[in-house]
């Protein structure tokens, strides 16, 4: 099923305008609806520059179609510099000084958690776009926080499905030494053991984020003689790991399963040295031909003269989901908005997705496929779209994982 985003928005805002009646709209103020968007723009520019561009594209389209609730939407961007305490300061400033209607953003998990806790304390909607930590919606989940991207758990589950099909018995694991890496490894081990009880894990490496000693790490993994490798490193760590691994033959005759490696942000810098045959989650931007994606990609290319990265999709979808939430709520009242977000179906560049009422996690999925090199560039082949809804634990389990209900 496909929904044309523009017509949906036009219809929704028209509907909202009808129901809300002009008097009510005026009562809420005829000025723009303000979104306070906090992110690590300077600390993580590789992801967040495309993110901001995707966001601006969506914003432009929404406002061209009349905005939401008959009002334009305006964004106030703030840079947290990668520090949770600065993110909280911005959040306070955005609510009190800028009078924003809701908050969004967050790249690092701890920043996302800090804003989420602040949002709960101040009873303000927070749409966490990127932070992958499971705690955002489960252990530390709260009424006011919703998360767009497939979580660490979901990405691991998607990969375990493929990993379980491999004949490999002995696995070595490498992950950056922080929450994302640790929980990626934890879920992978747990889920793979469940799917294939006879696997063993022979080596674990946790290089410090951004500081991998690639040669030594590769050698340590090699020494454990695994059948297969599970990788969670990304960015510069990944590039260094791949280069040393290629030269030292770590990947020869071994299956490699790798989180996020198919995302253009991390695959493109590798150029012709991109690994071949790794099973990855990612975003094959050039090959997805669904109508909603083609439309998104064409508009993005026309506006920025560049191809979209995964960050672009996340920014684009976050903004669209906010607009859809506003339209459904018919108000900027945060309690109504939160109720509207529960079970909200919204259009995304990957097709329709939904913020689950049970844990506020969106069902946006990811693409699972294999890496290959084409024309001197890394690409994804044999990919399929893994719908996020299928890679979450049962409702009963979610209820135990999420004390907030």
């Amino acid at each position: 099923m496909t929904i044309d985003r523009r017509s949906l928005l036009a219809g929704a805002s028209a509907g909202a305008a009808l129901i809300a009646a002009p008097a009510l709209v005026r009562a809420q103020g005829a000025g723009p609806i303000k979104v306070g968007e906090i992110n690590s723009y300077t600390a993580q520019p590789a992801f967040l520059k495309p993110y901001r561009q995707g966001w601006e594209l969506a914003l432009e389209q929404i406002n061209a179609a009349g905005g939401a609730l008959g009002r334009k939407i305006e964004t106030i961007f703030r840079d947290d510099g990668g520090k949770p305490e600065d993110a909280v300061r911005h959040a306070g400033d955005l609510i009190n000084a800028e009078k924003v209607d809701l908050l969004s953003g967050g790249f690092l998990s701890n920043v996302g958690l800090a804003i989420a806790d602040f949002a709960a304390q101040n009873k303000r909607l927070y749409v966490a776009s990127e932070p992958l930590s499971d705690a955002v919606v489960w252990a530390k989940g709260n009424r006011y926080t919703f998360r767009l991207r497939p979580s660490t758990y979901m990405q691991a589950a998607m990969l375990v499905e493929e990993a379980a099909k491999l004949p490999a018995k002995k696995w070595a694991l490498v992950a950056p030494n922080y929450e994302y890496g640790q929980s990626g490894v934890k879920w992978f081990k747990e889920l793979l053991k469940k799917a294939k009880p006879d696997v063993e894990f022979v080596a674990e490496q946790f290089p410090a984020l951004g500081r991998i000693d690639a040669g030594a790490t590769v050698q340590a993994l090699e020494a454990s003689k695994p059948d297969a490798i599970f990788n969670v490193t990304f960015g510069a760590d990944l590039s260094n790991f791949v280069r040393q691994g290629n030269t030292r033959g770590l990947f020869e005759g071994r299956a490699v399963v790798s989180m996020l490696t198919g995302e253009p942000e991390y695959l493109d810098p590798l150029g012709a040295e991109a690994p071949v045959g790794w099973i990855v989650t990612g975003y094959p931007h050039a090959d997805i031909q669904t109508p909603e994606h083609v439309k998104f990609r064409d508009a993005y290319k026309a506006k920025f003269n560049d191809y979209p990265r995964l960050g672009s999709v996340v920014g684009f979808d976050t903004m669209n989901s906010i607009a859809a939430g506003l339209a459904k709520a018919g108000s900027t009242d945060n309690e109504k908005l939160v109720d509207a977000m529960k079970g909200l179906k919204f259009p995304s560049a990957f097709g329709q997705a939904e913020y689950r009422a049970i844990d506020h996690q969106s069902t946006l999925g990811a693409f699972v496929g294999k890496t290959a090199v084409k024309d001197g560039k890394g690409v994804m082949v044999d990919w399929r779209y893994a719908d996020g809804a299928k890679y979450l634990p049962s409702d009963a389990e979610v209820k135990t994982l999420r004390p907030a209900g």
Partner: protein
Amino acid sequence: MVDLILTQTLNGLASASSLFLVASGLSIIFGVTRIVNFAHGSLYMLGAYLAWTLVSAFGAAEPLGFWGGVVLAALLVGLLGVVIEVLVLRRIYQAPELFQLLATFGVVLMLQDLALATWGPEDKLGPRAPGLKSFVILFDNRFPTYELFLIAVGPLVLLILWLLFQKTRWGTLVRAATQDREMVGALGVNQRLLFTSVFAFGSMLAGLGGALQLPREAVNLHMDLSMISEVFVVVVVGGLGSVTGAYLAAVLIGILHAFGILIFPKITLVLVFLVMAVVLVVKPYGLMGKAPIGGARGHGPAEPLLLPADKLTKLAGLIALLLLVLAPLVAPDHILLTLTELVIFALFAASLHFMMGPGGMASFGHAAYFGLGAYGAALAVKWLGASMEPALIFAPFLAGIAGVVFGWFCVRLSGVYLAMLTLAFAQIAWATAFQWVELTGGDNGILGVWPSAWAVSKTGFYYLALGICVLAILALRLTIFSPLGYALRAGRDNPLRAEAIGLDVMRIQWVAFAVAAFAAGIAGALFAFFKGSVFPTYMAIPRSVDALLMVLLGGVQTVAGPVIGAFAYAGLSEQLMKATMYWRFGLGLSIVLLVILFPRGLVGASLMLRERWTRRPEPAARVAVEGGR
């Protein structure tokens, strides 16, 4: 197993070479100019970026294109070193040592944004070196030939440096200046030229280190800071100013990394800092370093005598306090939030000033005590179920106890070595918070540390913070003018004389260290309740640097300096962060300009201005002090 040990040794040696190139440059620069160049990591990063651009332009497949690009990149970075030295550092050689550190930190911020603007946010994976693309079989493992080449580069550069320093006139001058700079100047050597050339040479080594990483590492915007912290460790472990020591230390650290990940894969974060702490405790001047000639005191002008504020200043302070007390009546909520944060930072800065100004102990790791205060509060709330009031009382003691323990080791050192040991302890505290996930929640931190109901409102919490911080700052001020404070300053200005009149200098410094830690803990605990959460970033290096910047901007010489510095710095960075995405450039530029224009800090500058205005004769007391040194 033997194969693995041998291969890991080679891996360690290969990493050591690049570390050594950068560290030797830093060490040489420090030896001559006494500047701890924070921007050295940035020069390394620029070397890598420039090499990437040049090698791509010249053609990476040709040996001439590749090596030509690498060498040219190193030379260009050397040229940039000249620019930095002439434009910035030359103007501030007379400023106190830490001021120069501050200026180079400003340069770091500017170069970060320049690199982002020039090369874009994406990582650049460079080409492999022609002729060294493949591997050889060593000990049954494939080992990259380029890594072998790197292993050779380290000792080769060491040899070249040795020849340069032993056999050329320039090298002799550099060695002479490292030992006694004033004497070299007195003998008629052109110091300007010597300093510029040394800085350019050190920069070039950093650039070469970066350029040689091209086939090995993806060039990225985080290279600068991750390199500089590692290089500081190498230089300090090796002994500042000693090139051979730098090589030994680089090998030690490289090998430690390679084996550390085999034995303790999870504590690589802290391993190097543990080693640095051990080395500094056992050998206070590093493996090959020598105690500086003529005492560890810097070359800056003598500290003016710290006098209690006169009536006018006291009146100004009182008015400022009154304004702060009345602020909630008129200020909107968001201004109150900002003010609360500034007031907390003012206490944090004042606590650092207490050990830095009167105590003469500059700390690079003061955030540790701020963070421990914050964690103390959060842990009390989370694990003991305490409410805000007991948590606020408990938290500073955690920081104070850490101050007592760490301080015991730190006061045995002085100058940069003391600063580096505080840094090492701060990193160990940080790594503990980061790594001990069961207790501290790891990098996800501890959430839900909100104040008691009566202090939840913005005004309520503001008054709570203001009250506690003002009292604590006044207490610190009182201590500075108490017998303890006078003894502390005596120990700073002339340890020998102080000892001679029966003061136990080390013990006094130890007490001051603990007091400063305790006060920082109070600020940290307030900060935790203000933000509602705590994270390891509270005690990371940037927070320590923030504290230093606040104190130095305000001026070390006065008691009011750090408070004003905190308001100026935190206010400035907040406004810049809001105004532009390139806030780091703006902040860096402001810091550099402030350092050049006000080399004694904001308050110091205004005092000088006032002195000039009133044209009072030099106070007799000050002359006596200057004469007595």
